[in-house]
Every structure is written in C-alpha cells, then in structure tokens.
C-alpha cells in the first residue's frame, strides 16, 4: 500500500491519564513502518500538538492535527429559570483540521478547542474545572464551516468545511452500534447530518478484536461500517491508538484505573470503564490491512475493505498540514506596531529610545559625564547592537519588552531583568535591565547575534506579591486577544507515581503513604535501582522481595514515571503576540482565571511565540516591604540615614531608599558578607554559599558576581573553585597559559569562570568574532560537535603562532569548561539583589527581617530567622491584640531599641477574613470588647489566648491557660450588629465582665508548653528556643553548640543536636550519594555531612526526623567555617533510643577510613559537592 496506512486517531501521553507514548515515539514508529502521515488527536486539547509537529518534521512525514472532544447535549433543561441549561455528554468524537487552507483549518481547530473550554465567547464559560469540557454539535458546526473565524481567515478558507468530524465507537452513533437498535443508530446519525456542513462528517470503524458482539469488537466495527455505507457517508478505519507498541497496554490499564480512581480489580468488574484489552497500539500497515479485510469480509466483501482503506487515505490527504503555511511553524510574531505605541519604523523608534536612555543614565544633569573614550565605546557598542537587532527584525520585540518593563515600573513595582539580557546595552538603555554591560565587560553576542536567530529570552523579576497584578495589567494593556499565560506540563514523579500505582493495585492508602514518604528525590524510572542503593529504602526492598504486589508496585511506578499528569499555569511565562494569537494556540482557564495557552515553554520557539518570563521573586517583595517599613518608621531622609548609619544621597526626602542607587562599595555590607552571617540574603544564604563567601571574602561588587558564578555546576566540575581561591589569596601564583590571555582572565586571577571569558579566549587565540565564538562555545560538551571545535581551535591557534603546549593547555580548559560555565551577565544580574539584600541586612536589619518574615523568600523555615533575630539582639515582640498588625511590623521598644512585632496573620487555622476584622476593630479595651467586636470564632479566640495575645487585657488576672479555658467554656456570641459601636465610636468604658467572671486556677503553662504552642500555631518558637526544653538531655550527653563549634580543632569528636533546617542530596558524584543536613540549636547552624556508611547507620532518621542528635567529627571548611562529618544520627525526641556518651564508638576511627587522607582536600570536595547540589537547584529554579 503506497504511503502506508495513516492513523487518524492517536492520543499521545499529553492526553493526561489516557495516552501512554510520547509524540516522538509514535512518529518514529509510524516512520519506521513507512506510514507517510500521522495524526495527533489528544483528548480535550492540543497538548501534544507542537511536539507532534516537531516529531513529524523530524521523521519526514506529514503531520495531521485534531482533538478528541466531548459532545454536549444541544438542549438541556435549566435547573431553574434563568440559569444556564445543564448539558450532559452524549459521546466523544475526533475532529481533524483540514490542511493547505492557509491556516484556516488549524485556526478553526484552535478556536474550537478554546470554545470547548469556555474561552471563545461561546456557551457558558464558568470557572476552570466547574464546567464540562466539550461543545455542542451546533458550536462544532459553526467552527467546521468557518462561521466563527475572523473575516480575513474565512475569506482565505473558501467554501469547503475546515474540519472533519469522525464519529467512532465513542460517539453516540458508535455507542448505538454496539447493540442491534438500528433505528436508534439511524436517528442519531441523521441528527449529525443535519447539524454539520456537507462533507464534514465521516464515520470511523475501530476494532480492538474484542470478544465478538461487544464494544470495540470486529462486529462493532462492522455495524459502524454498514451504517456509513447505507447513509452514503465515508467510513474510515482507525485503531483508537493510545500507545506506540503493545508494551504500553499495561500502562494504559493503570492510567484507566487512575482516571476512574478505582483499583484494576474493580474495573475488571465494570468492563465499560476501560480498554477491553491491549490492542490499542499503533499497528503496522500490514496489520491494519488485515483488520480492514476482516471487517470488510463481515460487512460485505473485499470491496468494503478496499473502500475503508481508500477513505482513510482520502481523509488523511485532506488533513495533511503544511507546518509553515498552516501552523506558522518557526515564524516569530510580535505585537502590531500601533499596539506598542509606534507609527513609524521600529528600528528608528528603538534608536531614539536608546538615545533617551543615554541622556538619562550617562549624561543626565545629576550624573558624571562620560569621558571621550567611554563615550566612543558606548556609541560603538550601541551602533553594533542596533544593527544586529535591525538585521534580525527584532526591534519590535525589544520595544514590546520595554513597554512591559515600563508598565511594571509605572505601577511602582520593583523589577529587574535577569539572565543574559543583562549583556545588552539596549536593554540597559531601555530600562529593562539595571546592569551596565560596559562596566562589567558583558558581551552582547552571548545574548543575541546574527548567528542566533531565535527570539532571545528576556526574563523580568518582579515582586512576587504583585505578580498577578502585573499579569492583569499586561492583559489590559495589550488586549486579551494578544496575550495569554503559558502553561506547563506537570509530570509524574516518584511519590505521585507510587501513589497512583498503589491505587491501581488496590493497596491500602496508609501503606502507600508510608512508602511514598520514604521516596526522596530520585526518578521513579529507576525505582528498582534505588531500592538496591538507598539505605532508607532497605526495609521496603526486603518486603518487595517477598511480596508480589509490592514487586508489581515497583514496575508500575516505573511505568508511570514522567508521564504528563496535568497542565497548570507556568510560574512566570506570559505569551505576547498580535491579534492572530488565538488562531494559533488554544487556551483554557488558568487557576487565576486568566486564559492560559495549552502550549508549554518548549512549544514557544517552534510556534513563533514571544514568551516573556515575568518571575515573581519573593526577595523583591521582602525588600520592597523593608523599604516601606523603613519609610514608615523614620519618615525622612535624614532620619533614615541616621538610623541606618549611611548616606542620604540615595534616600528620597520622604524616607524611601532607592536601592538601585545605593553605593556598590559599602564596606560595612562587605564586612557582613564576609562574616558569613548571610542568612536571608539573596543567593548567598545556603550552607554551601556561606562556606564559599567565607573562603572567598568578597571585597567588591565584582567579587560577588564571581562568587555567584563560581557556585555553579560548571565552574565546579571543571575544578575552578580551588585554584581561584588559592590564587585570590596568594597561596599560589597566578598562571596565565599565555600573556595574551591576561586581559581576559585577570579579573579571576587566571582561572576561567565566565562564558564571556571563553568567548574572549577564542577571539584572542583564533581570531574568530564573538558571535562565532558563542556558537563554538555551545558546541563544547556536545560529543558530536566538540571535535570540530577542537579541530578549528588547534588549527587557527597554531596559525596564529601559539605553540603546542599553550594550545594543549588552553584546549584542556575549554574542554573541561564545556558548556557548563556561567554567563557573567547572569551573575551580574543576580548580584544586584544579593548586594541590595545584604545592604539592607547591614543597615536596617529589623526592617529587613520583618520583610523576610512577611514574604518568606528563603530556603529556610521562618523559625531559623527568629533565631537570627535573637543572635542579632533584635527583640521579638509578642503577639498582642492591640499592638500587632496584619503584617510583621518594626516597632520601637521602651528601651529605644527596634523590635519586630509578631503579626496577627500566620496563626494556624485563623482565616484572613478574621484577621482583617480583628485588625479593623483595634483598639480593644477589654476582653468583653474583644468578644463583642472582633468577630473571632471561639477556636480562634482560644488560639490567640494560648499565644498570649490577650495578656495585656488580662491585666495580671489569671494566666493564659485560664483564658483559653474560659473562651472554650463560654461560646463566643457576639453582640447583634445594632448594638455594636459604629466606626469611629469608642465602646463605652464598662467594667470588663469577661475578666471579672474569669475562673482562675489553671496551672500556668511551662516555658516548654509555651514553646510547643508557638510551634503548633505559628511554626515559630518565639519565647524560647525549641532546644531549650532538651537542655537536660543535652547536658547529660555533653553536646557542643554551634557557637562553640568554631573554637574546636579540626577532627574533634562531637555530639551536636538541633532542629533540622535544611536537607540536601546532591546528585551522585562519581559514585555514592552524599546527604547534607543542617540543624539549628539556637546558637546557630551546624552543617553535617553524611557519607554512605553514616547514612546506613542513620537510615530511619535521614529524611523524616525533625529533632536530631548527631555524632561525628569536626571538619574545618575555612577560616570562619566548620562543619561536622557525621557518623550516626538519632531521633532526639525519642529519649529511650539515645545512646550513652560512654558507649559511643570512636568517631575518629569510624570517620577516618572514609575520609580522604588530607582533611583540606576532603573539605574542598565537600564544598564542591554542596555547590553542585545547590548550583543545580538554582539552575532548575531559574529555568
């Protein structure tokens, strides 16, 4: 059969909880079988469409796109008069877009899918999840005929229908065909014929060779075929594909069970709920011909079989898409010029705005004028960038991004570009980025060049708390037809996979929960492997070997691994385009209510969509909060400067600190950073980073850029950290492979750290331009391309007379550096908020900590920051019904110091509405007043009482426990509204009846109980440190505190104890996993390292246990740093299990044989591993 069979009904894995195989695997299977086209018809959306297009292009076969949609009943009866009619699903159909119609077929498909999600102004929209996804027959007909398209598309489309509707076994017609009710079948079929335009309808026969007479049996297919032939409609043959090969069938079974939320065993009793057998794979042309023959034979003879195959081929031909002409593959589309406020040539407009930027940033009246040489460099650079942008036709894109940045700034919201966008002078001049690329030697070609023709990524960080407002403003500004949020695919990971596999097998939920909790950061795809390696899974591994169901559980978990589960709003992506956007992507409602594309970030470039990452950064919110708090507290520039012991140049007269303008050479700030007390500071607060800043001892802003850049997998893997530190501190001489490289490498003492340095090395030694150098850099680390880079480098460098030894040495660096290095522009962009946060912590620690508590930006639990406040001597003011605000406030104490007042919000179980009402009613004169006006529920009254919020109103009568009991006994009944004082009116100063009737005698809570209450309700230990209650045990055991640890020698045996604050498991580094656990004991943090044997000795406590006792030996990590290499850990809360000091084994003995001979080396390795872990985490978080 020429061109092979074409599958027209194929669900990919992007049909969540339905399809099994990825588009690439399906297209590869089709290609390998000689099929010359393949459809992708995911359920409810085009979720896999772009991947399918890419896979088909790769295979050289024609893509076909469609969707599998539910059809809703046309007439529903309203539940009550006036409410929208209730519709129900009357079956599902496959709808295919017609191709070679200048995009009109694809546009109709996109709009239809959006309509099915209530997003195209059709039908009852409703909230996400609240309505059934589907369309009525009439709506479907409107899209098939093109009636609902934009006029220009409709004209281009012509007369023929734009969509083909396949009525298969899942349709109402197909369902009727299971039985023998021919009249029902005919009636349903004629309803379809009446509704749809001529030529849009076909029937689809499917047989999964199920038991004769039942659904998806050959007889079912035969009846559908006969119905089509009788009515003169075309009948195609499909296989309702869900997996690429027979192996996927078991996975499909599990997905069916998950979708139905029923165990397999139960599904087996209700045959209708799932696939009847395992025949739904992408069968070969030969198999499908055999299927056609068997259907044909039973339906009337050979000519029926031939007709089935021919009609399938004919519909396939109508549906073949031209990726470029129909779908716009690879064609970037920017908003129309008038939308970004220009009426002339975008290139000229861009140039003018850059000129304005020069005046604003360099030659403004308040700024030092540029020297002649600098001016020339600036002009050259600008000229250069503008010519590249003009040549690529991206001016409108830059203007669009500038428009967004301007819009955000106009809202008064902090924002900053992150990433390689900081390399561009144009971005700086337009106000998109706040880093001067000339000052930091950043190279434009790293960001954009004539050789990089895809749209560059510009990411904008904004205050996290304002992100949604920013989104709404962008929609308003550009128009809802040009903007949509991007989505992301959430895939199965280990825990979810094991839960759902367990559900399918019918294991008890508690048991599954137990297992799921033990899974810690590994891919479920290698579950079986993990069982053998991970000590915390040892008990489970043992059960597996003796328990058949658990054995299966492991296999099914592996099968589910990484399958898409659902889509959700991407955390930052906003798609901007012109008015044709919704013809090119279907949208559905996001959790925010704003429309969200069904495409994810991988789909953007191929679909020519501009994606802007508007990232919510909590640190930006925390800093904005701190700045506002400082202004509120001090009120004027002079007061602010005096309170913070800093200058006034960058403080607005109303007391607003302009963080963009603070001096970047503040010695006090660098002193703080060098002290490693950087908890809460952006990017430099993790255990590994604290270790690195301690060793690096930054003195200038550029050192911070280097620090942040070093703390990445690339520089770490290529062993840059140690030599850099040694050279920096003069322990080793700086070595340059050749004097020519000195200018490029001097800032990092001869060590290659930045991508920019790679480009300069290539430029110097081979003479290639930066844009070419960036292409070469990208090939590094790619085994297919690296050899040509080496060849080029060696040839050209030799031609430029560099001798063999130099070439060898430099090549070794380039090779090792690979593609892993770090872009200095990224580092520079990150260093800005890092420095700003450290500056705030140095000069206004109270306001800064309040901002951190309010917005919780860091990696540590909030309670650790309480410990930090305690360390800094900042009073933490207790919760008070009159003094506390909704947020954390800085308040002046009686002794003149500034303290932080706990907030009314953040109490467990108290709603935001209650908090608002409580705050609105302040001040409260008495307990009765609180009861009458606060509107707090009884349980909330009890909670605030337990936390001491009413202590001041008790005026010394009784204690907290009395009041908790009192509120508990006397249900709060607030006074009817008419008796309540109106706003502004003070309640009458009546004697406090509540207080008078308070029964006394409850034992006052002990300090330990108070801390317990605080932890339960606030997740903070405020009045004392949690560890204080274990003081007795710790004394008996003879533990060392974090503060005392620093005074010990390297290699001292210690017991440390504390609360877990961070756990990290870096990826395997040349062998076995290392686990890092940081604990806090009230005097500071202790960072502990668990190597393999220690993990085995501590297996039950590695991940779940909160309070830990750890035995180990000290390891010096630098002049101001020390860590503990653990030997064993125990659960401190389980007193009976704790060891006796005398019985402890010799930790030095135990630690020695696994530590390397030189402790320093060990420490360096540890740092590397830590950095790898955190660096990777950062990279993941940033991508």
């Amino acid at each position, binding site marked *: 059969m020429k061109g092979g069979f074409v599958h027209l009904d194929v669900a990919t894995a992007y049909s969540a909880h339905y399809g099994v195989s990825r588009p690439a695997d399906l297209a590869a299977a089709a290609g390998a079988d000689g099929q010359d086209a393949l459809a992708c018809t995911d359920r409810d959306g085009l979720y896999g469409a772009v991947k399918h297009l890419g896979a088909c292009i790769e295979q050289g076969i024609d893509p076909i796109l469609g969707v599998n949609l539910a059809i809703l009943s046309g007439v529903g009866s309203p539940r009550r008069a006036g409410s929208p009619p209730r519709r129900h699903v009357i079956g599902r159909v496959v709808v295919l877009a017609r191709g070679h119609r200048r995009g009109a077929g694809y546009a109709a498909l996109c709009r239809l899918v959006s309509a099915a999600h209530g997003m195209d102004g059709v039908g009852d929209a409703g909230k996400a999840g609240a309505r059934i996804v589907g369309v009525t027959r009439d709506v479907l007909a409107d899209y098939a005929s093109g009636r609902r398209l934009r006029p220009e598309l409709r004209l281009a489309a012509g007369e023929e229908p734009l969509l083909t509707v396949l009525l298969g076994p899942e349709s109402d017609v197909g369902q009727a065909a299971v039985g023998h009710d021919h009249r029902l079948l005919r009636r349903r079929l004629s309803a379809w014929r009446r509704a749809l335009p001529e030529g849009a309808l076909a029937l689809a026969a499917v047989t*999964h*060779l*199920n*038991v*004769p007479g039942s659904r998806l*049996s*050959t007889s079912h297919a035969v009846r559908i075929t006969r119905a089509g032939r009788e009515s003169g409609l075309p009948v195609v043959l499909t296989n309702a594909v869900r997996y690429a090969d*027979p*192996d996927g*069938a*078991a996975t499909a*079974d599990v997905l069916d069970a998950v979708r139905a939320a029923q165990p*397999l*065993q139960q599904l*087996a009793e209700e045959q209708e709920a799932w696939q*009847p*057998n*395992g*025949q739904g794979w992408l069968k070969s042309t030969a198999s499908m011909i055999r299927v056609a023959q068997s259907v044909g034979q039973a339906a009337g003879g050979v000519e029926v079989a031939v007709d089935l195959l021919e009609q399938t081929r004919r519909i396939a031909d109508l549906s073949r898409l031209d990726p470029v002409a129909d779908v716009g593959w690879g064609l970037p589309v920017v908003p129309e010029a008038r939308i970004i406020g220009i009426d002339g040539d975008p290139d000229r407009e861009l140039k003018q705005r850059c000129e304005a930027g020069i005046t604003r940033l360099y030659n403004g009246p308040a700024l030092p004028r540029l020297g002649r040489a600098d001016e020339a460099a600036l002009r050259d650079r600008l000229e250069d960038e503008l010519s590249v942008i003009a040549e690529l036709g991206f001016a409108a894109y830059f203007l669009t991004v500038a428009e967004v940045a301007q819009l955000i700034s106009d809202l008064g919201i902090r924002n900053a570009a992150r990433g390689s966008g900081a390399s561009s002078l144009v971005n700086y001049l337009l106000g998109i980025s706040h880093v001067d690329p000339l000052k930091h030697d950043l190279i434009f070609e790293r960001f954009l060049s004539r050789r990089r023709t895809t749209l560059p990524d510009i990411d904008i960080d904004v205050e996290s708390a304002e992100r949604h407002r920013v989104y709404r403003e962008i929609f308003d500004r550009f128009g809802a037809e040009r903007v949509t949020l991007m989505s992301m695919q959430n895939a199965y990971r280990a825990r979810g996979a094991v839960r759902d596999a367990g559900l*399918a*097998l019918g294991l008890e939920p508690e048991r599954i929960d137990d297992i799921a909790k033990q899974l810690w950061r590994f891919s479920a795809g290698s579950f079986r492997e993990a069982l053998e390696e991970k000590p915390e899974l040892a008990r489970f591994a043992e059960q597996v070997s003796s328990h*058949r169901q658990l*054995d*299966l559980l492991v*296999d*099914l978990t*592996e*099968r589910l691994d990484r399958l898409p589960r659902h889509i959700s709003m991407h955390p930052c992506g906003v798609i901007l385009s012109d008015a044709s956007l919704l013809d090119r992507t279907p949208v559905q409602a996001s959790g925010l209510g704003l429309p969200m594309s069904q495409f994810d970030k991988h789909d953007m470039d191929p679909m020519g969509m501009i994606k802007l990452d508007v990232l919510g950064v909590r640190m930006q919110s925390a800093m904005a909060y701190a700045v506002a708090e400082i202004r509120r507290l001090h009120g004027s520039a002079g007061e602010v400067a005096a309170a913070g012991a800093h200058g006034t140049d960058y403080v607005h007269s109303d007391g607003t600190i302009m963080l963009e303008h603070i001096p970047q050479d503040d010695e006090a700030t660098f002193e703080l950073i060098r002290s490693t007390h950087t908890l809460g500071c952006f990017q430099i607060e993790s255990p590994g980073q604290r270790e690195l800043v301690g060793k690096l001892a930054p003195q200038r802003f550029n050192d911070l850029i280097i620090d942040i850049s070093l703390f990445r997998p690339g520089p770490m893997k290529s062993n840059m950290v140690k030599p850099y530190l040694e050279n920096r501190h003069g322990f080793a001489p700086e070595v340059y492979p050749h004097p020519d490289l000195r200018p490029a490498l001097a800032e990092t003492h001869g060590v290659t750290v930045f991508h920019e340095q790679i480009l300069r090395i290539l430029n110097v030694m081979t003479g290639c331009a930066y844009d070419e150098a960036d292409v070469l850099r990208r090939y590094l680390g790619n085994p297919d391309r690296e050899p040509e880079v080496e060849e080029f480098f060696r040839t050209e460098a030799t031609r430029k007379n560099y001798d063999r030894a130099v070439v060898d040495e430099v090549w070794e660096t380039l090779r090792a550096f690979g593609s892993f290095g770090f872009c200095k522009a990224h580092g520079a962009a990150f260093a800005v908020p890092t420095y700003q946060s450290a500056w705030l912590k140095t000069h206004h620690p109270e306001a800064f900590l309040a901002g951190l508590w309010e917005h919780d930006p860091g990696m540590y639990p909030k309670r650790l920051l309480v410990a930090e406040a305690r360390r800094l001597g900042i009073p933490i003011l207790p919760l008070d019904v009159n003094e506390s605000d909704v947020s954390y406030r800085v308040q002046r104490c009686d002794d003149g110091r500034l303290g932080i007042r706990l907030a009314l919000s953040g109490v467990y179980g108290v709603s935001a509405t209650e908090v608002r009402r409580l705050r609105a009613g302040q001040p409260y004169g008495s307990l009765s007043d609180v009861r009458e006006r606060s509107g707090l529920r009884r349980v909330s009254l009890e909670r605030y009482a337990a936390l001491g919020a009413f202590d001041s109103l008790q005026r010394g009568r009784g204690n907290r426990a009395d009041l908790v009991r009192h509120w508990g006994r006397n249900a709060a009944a607030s006074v009817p509204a008419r008796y309540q004082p109106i706003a502004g009116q003070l309640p009458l100063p009546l004697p406090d009846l509540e207080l008078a009737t308070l029964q006394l005698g409850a034992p006052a809570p002990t300090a330990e109980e108070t801390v317990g209450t605080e932890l339960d309700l606030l997740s903070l230990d405020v009045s004392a440190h949690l560890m204080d209650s274990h003081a007795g045990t710790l004394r008996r055991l003879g533990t060392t505190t974090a503060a005392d640890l620093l005074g010990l020698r390297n290699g001292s045996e210690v017991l440390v104890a504390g609360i877990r604050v961070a756990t990290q498991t870096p990826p395997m580094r040349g062998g076995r996993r290392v686990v890092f656990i940081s604990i806090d004991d009230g005097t500071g943090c202790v960072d502990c390292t668990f190597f393999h044997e220690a993990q085995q000795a501590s297996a039950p406590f590695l991940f779940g246990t909160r309070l830990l006792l750890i035995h180990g030996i000290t390891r010096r990590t630098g002049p101001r740093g020390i860590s503990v290499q653990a030997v064993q850990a125990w659960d401190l809360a389980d007193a009976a299990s704790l060891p006796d000091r005398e019985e402890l084994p010799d930790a030095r003995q135990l630690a020695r044989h696994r530590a390397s001979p030189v402790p320093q080396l060990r420490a360096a390795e540890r740092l590397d591993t830590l950095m790898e872990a955190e660096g990777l985490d950062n990279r993941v978080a940033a991508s």
Partner: protein
Amino acid sequence: MGLFTQSLDVVLTEGGVLSALTWRGQRYDVLEEPLQWYERRKWWEEEQRAERGRGRGLVDHEIWRVQARGARDGDLRTFDLSHHVSSGRWRMIRLHDAVREEAA
C-alpha cells in the same frame, strides 16, 4: 458449557491458522475458519512482574473459537482455545455444547 484449562497440541497451517487439534487423545479437524479475538487477563493477580519492555501478551491473550469434528467419533464440537503469545502455549478454556451451539 464446560470450563477447562489444560494445554493441548495443535496443528497450524502455514498462514498461522489453526487446522487441527488433539484433545483427550482424539484428533479434531477444524471445519470453518476459526473466530479469533483478544480477551483481557487479570495480570495484576496472575503476574509477579509487569516491567517496562515486557512486550505483548501481558494484558490480553488470544482466543480462538473453532468448530471441529472428531476424527474418531465424528462428533462436532466447538472449542475456545487460548493462545499464550509469549510462550506459544495453547490451552483449552471452554468446551461448548455442540448441538446447542448449532441450534442457537
């Protein structure tokens, strides 16, 4: 209808179609082209493993319904046989009452 599960020997044509089988010591010749379909298995009850890459035959098995005449006694019988794809084994799973089948 009787329910069985016992293995048996079969004769296949070159095209892979069943032409004869031996049951209880008697050879039966298949009369018409057999019906063939796939029935689900309760693999989660029956199997120890369901690992990725296991291939076909885990979720369903092939069923053949054949009408055959006993070479010795001349009786017409209808058998349901299962064919386990990966092991190649054939089993008798159902024996239909021949007379009633014909009358139906």
